[in-house]
């Protein structure tokens, strides 16, 4: 039947596109988080032009990245949800941050433009708990006295797949709402009390864009590229901030990276300028890699990215790691990766 033929053609096409990148054995191989995929792809492209060494990065999600590195099928794994120091030691892994970015709430309301609506953490948690159901709820009206909010029902949009973005978002909600912490908790995927699930950052972006009255959360670049209406947020210091490079950087500046395994989550950082839902993305590698040469090649790439990649990162609205953190990371490489 025709469908079968079509399906097999589609399968072959999918397989071809999946394997075409990995065909060259010499490439550095990595897998994991989708959040930093745009910048890793850009770095890999520039690195290939400069050194003729390719990078094969499969953006299969943070959980997938952790699985793959533990199965030793890749040279490095990438995750937005850092592993705790004990888990790193147990599996003989080294972890370090690579780049940072912001997660922003996005909404779809007729006549409301980006940055017009302000939300604080407690209200955001109540919306995602399903306790605030309409846009003209008293809590929202109080935060936005100047905006004419409609009586439209709120459609909560969350990730249906496990994701580092969800991990950081639920981590933030747990920090600002005791209710959220006890009822839902923080994880790459949780039992969402309400709302629609969509796959990937791009799925959430599309669903919010198509659904009237929707609210969702995406990595900043996705909000920008899809022209979504983002909200401003009230941060830990009680100040209203807009999502932009400066506010992401302010949040990152206050972080203390001198902890084992660089286990640092950047949500709800202090500082008048800090964007409350900022996140770092991490690389996982073996202390004693089975393939020493491949591991060295990967480190060379990361070294190159730290040295020359900052401008490219900024162009895509990622925040490069500060110089003193990079110095720390290089020390870790020298000391731990044999």
């Amino acid at each position: 039947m025709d469908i079968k033929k079509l399906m097999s053609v589609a399968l072959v096409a999918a397989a071809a596109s999946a394997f075409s990148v990995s065909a060259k054995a010499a490439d550095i191989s990595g897998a994991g988080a989708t959040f930093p995929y745009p910048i890793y792809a850009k770095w890999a492209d520039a690195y290939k032009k400069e050194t003729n060494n390719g990078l094969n990065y499969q953006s299969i999600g943070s959980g997938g990245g952790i699985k793959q590195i533990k199965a030793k099928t890749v040279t490095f794994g990438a995750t937005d949800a850092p592993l705790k120091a004990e888990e790193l030691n147990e599996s003989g892994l080294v972890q370090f941050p690579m780049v940072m970015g912001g997660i922003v709430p996005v909404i779809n309301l007729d006549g409301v433009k980006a940055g017009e609506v302000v939300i604080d953490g407690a209200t955001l948690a109540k919306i995602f708990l399903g306790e605030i159901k309409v846009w003209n709820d008293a809590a929202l009206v109080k935060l936005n006295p100047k905006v004419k909010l409609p009586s439209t029902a709120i459609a909560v949009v969350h990730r249906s797949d496990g994701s580092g973005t969800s991990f950081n978002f639920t981590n933030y909600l747990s920090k600002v709402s005791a209710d959220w912490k006890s009822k839902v908790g923080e994880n790459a995927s949780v039992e969402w009390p309400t709302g629609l699930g969509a796959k990937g950052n791009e799925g959430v972006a599309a669903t919010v864009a198509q659904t009237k009255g929707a609210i969702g959360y995406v990595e900043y670049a996705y909000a920008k590229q899809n022209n979504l209406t983002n909200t401003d947020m009230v941060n830990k210091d009680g100040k209203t901030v807009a999502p932009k490079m400066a506010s992401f950087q302010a949040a990152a500046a206050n972080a203390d990276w001198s902890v084992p395994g660089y286990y640092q989550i950047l949500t709800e950082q202090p500082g008048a300028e800090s964007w409350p839902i900022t996140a770092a993305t991490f690389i996982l590698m073996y202390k004693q890699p089975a393939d020493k040469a491949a591991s060295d090649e990967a480190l060379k790439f990361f070294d190159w990215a730290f040295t020359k990649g900052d401008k490219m990162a900024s162009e895509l609205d990622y925040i490069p790691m500060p110089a003193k953190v990079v110095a720390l990371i290089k020390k870790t490489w020298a000391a731990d990766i044999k």
Partner: protein
Amino acid sequence: MTDFVVQDRALAKAKERAKALSAFRLGDLVFKNITLSAAVTVLVILGGVILSLIRGSIPAFHAMGFEFLTSQSWNPVTDKFGALPAIYGTVVTSLLAIVVAVPLGLGVAVFLTELCPMWARRPIGIAIELLAGIPSIIYGIWGLFIFAPFLQEYVQPAIIEFFAPIPFLSSVFAGPAYGIGTFTAGIILAIMILPFITSISRDVFSTVPPVLKEAAYGIGCTTWEVVRKVVIPYTRVGVVGGVMLGLGRALGETMAVTFIIGNAHKISGSLLAPGTTISATIANEFTEAVGDIYTSSLIALGLLLFLITFVVLAFARLMLMRLDQKGGKP
């Protein structure tokens, strides 16, 4: 001397015949074994799939026990998983699809075989078969970007308002209108299985001997009566087969449903609310499932889908057998 030659010749002939016959026998034996091994391969693959599904789902059943089938909670934080919302979503979306697609599909098939002018039959038939050729991801994207916003804006508010004063139905069609949800997924599935039901029904309708129909028309039956009393009873088995094929596709459909069902692990009284299906859950969560129990729960869901499909097909066979007994031979 001559006798001897004749005998010799006859012997040679017999030998030749025996040789040819044994060659035939050998050919037959080889052919039989090749086809046998083809059949066995299918059985081995099927058995392997079932075995690996069962093996993979043991940790989940071990951890949750029977609760896996009855619990509504799907919580990766506490590693507690329940399959009920996914089972419910799978069954409800498929039933919805059948309820919409069967009358529509049969209507098209009857029109094409009985009423449609000759010149229009081929174009309409081809158009419907083309629906079957559209990859499911296209249905998903179309559903998310065009169909769901359309439903949210124009159709669902009207449905909610219409059913609001009617008890029971008001909760089946309760708001808010998201556009995305179980209802939308059912409609998209109906469109996807429509070509199966239509083309199979059309094919079996055209096997009805003209003499039967002409006789019915001859005694003054209307077209409706001919279809109801002659065509449908004669082709019952084929039509039910087409419906089952459609149901089979609806139960397992993944990509299109994932886009538009809302992926919420919840059983809602309202058809307009978001839900999930077994295959959508697996597609969404498998790559990111961390931990043995999570992964195993997803494999167990796969096993359940296998069982549901098997039960549906078995039930369909049973129904057909009973219909046959009741109605006699078609």
